[in-house]
């Protein structure tokens, strides 16, 4: 029974990855490249010690984006606004960090909390519009992402909140003082962010709250059926709003590791596209904190390993295509598996019923 359950849980992501490998192989064959040696190249390069730390650091960010998306999914919210939430959050966190000089035990929490609050605040605009105005969070978040970009670029101009870095032309926020730097762990010749601990804690808390607490039950119930949750005494609209804000708060943490341990400021070099990645990882990992962790590492691994392809005459964008295919294949195979499971369950219930009906019919005929 247990083995069967594991089989049904894993079949979809495995199928998705296999489908995307096949798809990419076909493209590679068009390019007259050998798929097997290409994948081998990716793997051997990705697992080089020097790359593993970078991959783990990237995993932290992806993981947080994935959990932010997963919380949204639990409420049937499609938080495509992670992008805007994370960039606005990290921007303001860096600004606050760069303009305060507190001891470490205050400075670091201050930066982290600022990021969470800004992320939550920006997300709650979409939450408010969803609850009060019945506007799809997908649409409002797409708009909010663009607005966030505009605000950041505006504020990042020299003379406003940004400066031109001493060594580059990139616009950036002022550097955070040393007391706001988070230590790193040296390993494999790289520097691993200690912010990873926060990410792990977020995953654990996410799991406990969702599965073990009344609040988590209310959240899941509202996601499963808004009306049933409302009738059961949950303030369902408020629940939707809160979930959006929490998702935004965690999205706010996404870039904090990099900022505290490496860049020590915010600049336009911070990547875009975390929303889509986060959503993909939550889908791939089925909103399960461990599943999302594996998915996040896989993603980070692929992207770190991709540039090696260029050196071998294969455009590294093939990895982007692979990611897109994985998303589509994952969702499609989950949908198929879901339907198979549903049919199986109905059959089970049906057989339990027929025996009953038959016994009833015989009873009636006896009378």
């Amino acid at each position, binding site marked *: 029974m247990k083995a069967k359950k594991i089989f049904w849980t894993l079949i979809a992501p495995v199928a998705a990855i296999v489908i995307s490998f096949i798809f990419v192989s076909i493209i590679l064959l068009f390019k007259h490249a050998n798929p097997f040696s290409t994948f081998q190249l990716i793997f051997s390069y990705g697992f080089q010690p020097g790359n593993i730390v970078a991959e783990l650091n990237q995993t932290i960010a992806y993981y947080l984006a994935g959990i932010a998306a997963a919380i949204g999914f639990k409420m049937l919210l499609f938080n495509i606004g992670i992008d805007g939430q994370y960039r606005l959050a990290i921007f303001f966190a860096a600004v606050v960090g760069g303009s305060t000089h507190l001891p470490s035990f205050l400075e670091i929490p201050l930066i982290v909390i600022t990021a969470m609050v800004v992320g939550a605040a920006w997300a709650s605009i979409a939450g408010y519009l969803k609850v009060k105005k019945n506007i799809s969070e997908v649409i409002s978040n797409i708009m909010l992402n663009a607005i966030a970009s505009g605000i950041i670029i505006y504020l990042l101009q020299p003379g406003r909140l940004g400066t031109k870095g001493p060594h580059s032309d990139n616009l950036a926020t002022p550097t955070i003082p040393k007391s706001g730097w988070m230590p790193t762990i040296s390993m494999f010749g790289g520097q691993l962010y200690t912010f990873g601990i926060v990410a792990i804690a977020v995953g654990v808390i996410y799991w406990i709250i969702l599965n073990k607490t009344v609040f988590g039950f209310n959240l899941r119930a509202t996601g499963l059926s808004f009306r049933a949750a*409302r009738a059961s*005494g949950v303030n369902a609209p408020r629940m939707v709003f809160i979930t959006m804000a929490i998702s935004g708060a965690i999205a706010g943490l996404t870039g904090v590791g990099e900022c505290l341990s490496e860049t020590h400021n915010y600049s336009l070099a911070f990547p875009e596209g975390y929303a889509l990645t986060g959503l993909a990882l939550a889908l791939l990992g089925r909103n399960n904190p461990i599943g999302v962790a594996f998915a996040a590492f896989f993603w980070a691994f692929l992207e770190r390993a991709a540039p090696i392809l260029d050196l071998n005459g294969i455009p590294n964008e093939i990895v982007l295509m692979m990611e897109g295919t994985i998303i589509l294949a994952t969702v499609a195979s989950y949908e198929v598996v879901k339907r198979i499971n549903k049919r199986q369950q*109905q059959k089970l219930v049906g057989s339990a019923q027929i025996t009953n009906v038959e016994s009833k019919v015989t009873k009636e005929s006896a009378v």
Partner: protein
Amino acid sequence: MSKVIELKDIEKKYPGVVANHGVNVSVEKGTIHAIIGENGAGKSTLMKILYGMVKPDSGTISINGEVAKIKSPQDAIALGVGMVHQHFMLADNASVLENIILGSEPTNFGAVIDFKKAKEKILSIVDNYGLQIDPDATLGDLGVGVRQRVEIAKVLYRGAQILILDEPTAVLVPQEVEDLFKNLKELTRNGLTIIFISHKLDEVLNIADEITVMRQGTTVTRVLPKDTNKKQLAEYMIGGALPTPRPADTKPLPEKVLEMKNVFWNDRTGREVLHDVNLDIHAGEIVGLAGVEGNGQSELVELIMGLVKPASGFVSTVGLDTAKNTTRKIRDNGTGYIPQDRQRDGLLMSASLWENRILGHQETEPMSKGLWLNKKAAQNDSQRIVKEFDVRTPSISVHASALSGGNQQKFIVGREMSSEAKMIIAAQPTRGVDVGAQAIIWDHLIEARLKGAGVLLVSADLDELFQLSDRIAVIFSGQIVGFLDPRNTTPEELGLAMTGANK
């Protein structure tokens, strides 16, 4: 007179349920033929078979004397059989004309809609049958009665000679029912045949030329209205003796579990839905709330549960002012709620049964302690409900959606009665459930009353109201129009009161 439709020995089995067996119906041309039966008696399945939406396992259908193979609604339409669904198949965001012609558009060059021709054809139908609809109106602007006429026009537009109307009066107010009946008479005068599905005896006696009664999936008899009466029809429908004898009368306790004083409530558009409602329920009594659907019952229930707040007036549920307390508090204070739409309001369809046990009790012991859920307690208590209420399920970890309607309802009733509720709201508790489940649910409601709970039984089922209630409050267009004593009231009197005749 010739027989336009003849159904012989129709049988249809679903996994777990025999929906139809030994069904025989024959309908004469130009008549209104009523098919009556309780909810779950198999009327809807039969009509779906006739309209090609469901394939029968065996039996034959003859139309105008010829055996017909009806595999899809299109086949049915081609044979002149049209269906007016209970839930309208219309689009708000389109005009009446567009709704009517969809799928059978008159065109120029095979593609361009000939609006002029379409309008002429619709207007000729409107004139011929006195249907009173404006083809240019936007459907979203129209009331229920007009929408139903649009549905009828849609069927006539396709040249139907036989119209099936599935519970057409369920959503109508009495005035609209009268209009509908006038329209139907007009149609039969023009040679059309109507199959009228209902469980409302008054209406059927009033409108039908002939009546076929169904019970537990089969047709039991065929009678003419002039040869029968309501009592007899009811007996045919229920099968002689009623499943549960009326409980012994007991005296209600002095304590009030529900108090409603001068309650008014308006919907979002400002329409007055409840008008000056006054209703008290004491511990240890079952008060039936009788009324045609859509007369304010759902809103009344939502007010009692604190899901909406009164515009003015006072509602107190088990001593809590609902305007000042959340639904959560009201529930935790000892109010059980069996919602009318069990699948949407009562269950998390894609969660396990034991998680559904927690629903509504997530903040009370033993389902939770402080911030933490108690999974073990939920699972144990689910097992108890499954056993005590005879819920047919392979395990408590299957999703609620996998269960049949009756079993879902038994589980809900079990859940809502598990915490010694002081007040129970049961909205249409036995609608669409099989007779066995009905008996179990009724027994438990009576038992709860004996233990001192007050019960508000919202029902459109007269038998249920008479069987269970100590008093019956009648609601009509948002007002409580009177209280009746079921011991010395006839179903006719109650039926009359429900149509607002006393007003």
